[in-house]
């Protein structure tokens, strides 16, 4: 089995019962899918569940992937997005107790992280962790295009397919998502010190 095998060829071998093909397919796509789900849900456990569920669907043929309708990677992003939406709905149906606000009225990310997975610290790099937390606070319909465009290099058309919206909607959601993200990150920037102004 070569690494150059196409996804379609690997899928054909998977459905013929070749475990090596399934392993190759999984290792090829699990990384981007997990990273997408991690940013989308903000929880490593939820992301792992989503990856497992998506590949289980692929394995059993329950998802009905059609190679003629697009790349497998984008199809899996769409599956992961739908699973994340279901997770969001479940969270809304069973809301956690609200966290007490800080003095400035904003929820404390660290306090929220203990009850809501998305705000738990996941990354070692401070700048990366800041933008991940800011992303997790975006509404999901803004979060998806930002993650897929900025971190997975998908085109507007591909994002439109994954999110099942038109390209114009992708453009506007991406622009609004970026703006909201920039505002939130700007708010996190430490204010210039008084001494610096005096200097």
């Amino acid at each position: 089995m070569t690494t150059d095998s196409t996804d379609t060829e690997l899928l054909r071998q998977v459905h013929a019962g070749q475990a090596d093909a399934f392993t190759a397919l999984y290792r090829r796509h699990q990384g981007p899918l997990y990273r997408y789900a991690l940013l989308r849900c903000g929880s490593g456990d939820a992301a792992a569940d989503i990856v497992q569920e998506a590949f289980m669907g692929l394995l059993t043929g329950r998802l009905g992937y059609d190679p003629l309708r697009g790349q497998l990677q984008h199809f899996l992003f769409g599956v992961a997005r739908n699973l994340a939406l279901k997770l969001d709905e479940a969270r809304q149906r069973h809301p956690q107790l609200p966290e007490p606000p800080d003095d400035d009225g904003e929820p404390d990310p660290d306090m929220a992280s203990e009850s809501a997975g998305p705000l738990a610290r996941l990354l070692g790099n401070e700048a990366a962790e800041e933008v991940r937390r800011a992303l997790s606070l975006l509404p999901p319909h803004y979060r998806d295009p930002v993650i897929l465009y900025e971190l997975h290099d998908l085109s507007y058309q591909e994002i439109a397919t994954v999110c099942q919206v038109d390209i114009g909607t992708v453009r506007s959601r991406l622009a609004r998502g970026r703006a909201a993200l920039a505002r939130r990150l700007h708010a996190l920037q430490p204010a210039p010190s008084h001494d610096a102004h005096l200097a």
Partner: protein
Amino acid sequence: MKDDEFKDDTIDPALATRFAALRSELAGHDAPRCVEKELLQAFARQFPKQQPWYRTLSLPQWGTAGALASLCGVALLLALAPHQAITVGPPVIGIDSGAAFIALESLERIESEPHARVVEAELPQTALASLGMPLNPQTAGDTVRAEMLVAEDGHPLAVRLSAVN
């Protein structure tokens, strides 16, 4: 991936830097190994490996097969083994002018004996029955004069009956 015609280059440079940091940081994040393990277990359940035929046999079936194989082996060995034909036939009997000649060994063996000698003897008629001679019950107790052709080592080769007493 990204279409140039759609690519939006108006992204805030600070945001782009942070995205680059996030992308770099995430590069090492993969799904936990347990996910692959569980998926492979699910795969094995969905596509169970077909066992080789010899693993599908039960112990009694193995016993029967072994016994049959042994029988076939023995039969083959017997069929292929070089064996000497053991023929037990009546001695060669010749009647010559009232005297009977009974060869106890093959004619070739008798002819090849270099130092055969003749020994006269009296034999009970019952002993002749075992050599294929007809036996009259009324004279079964009589004896018959015989000349025995004996090999050098004393092994009897032939008998010539000269007269019945």
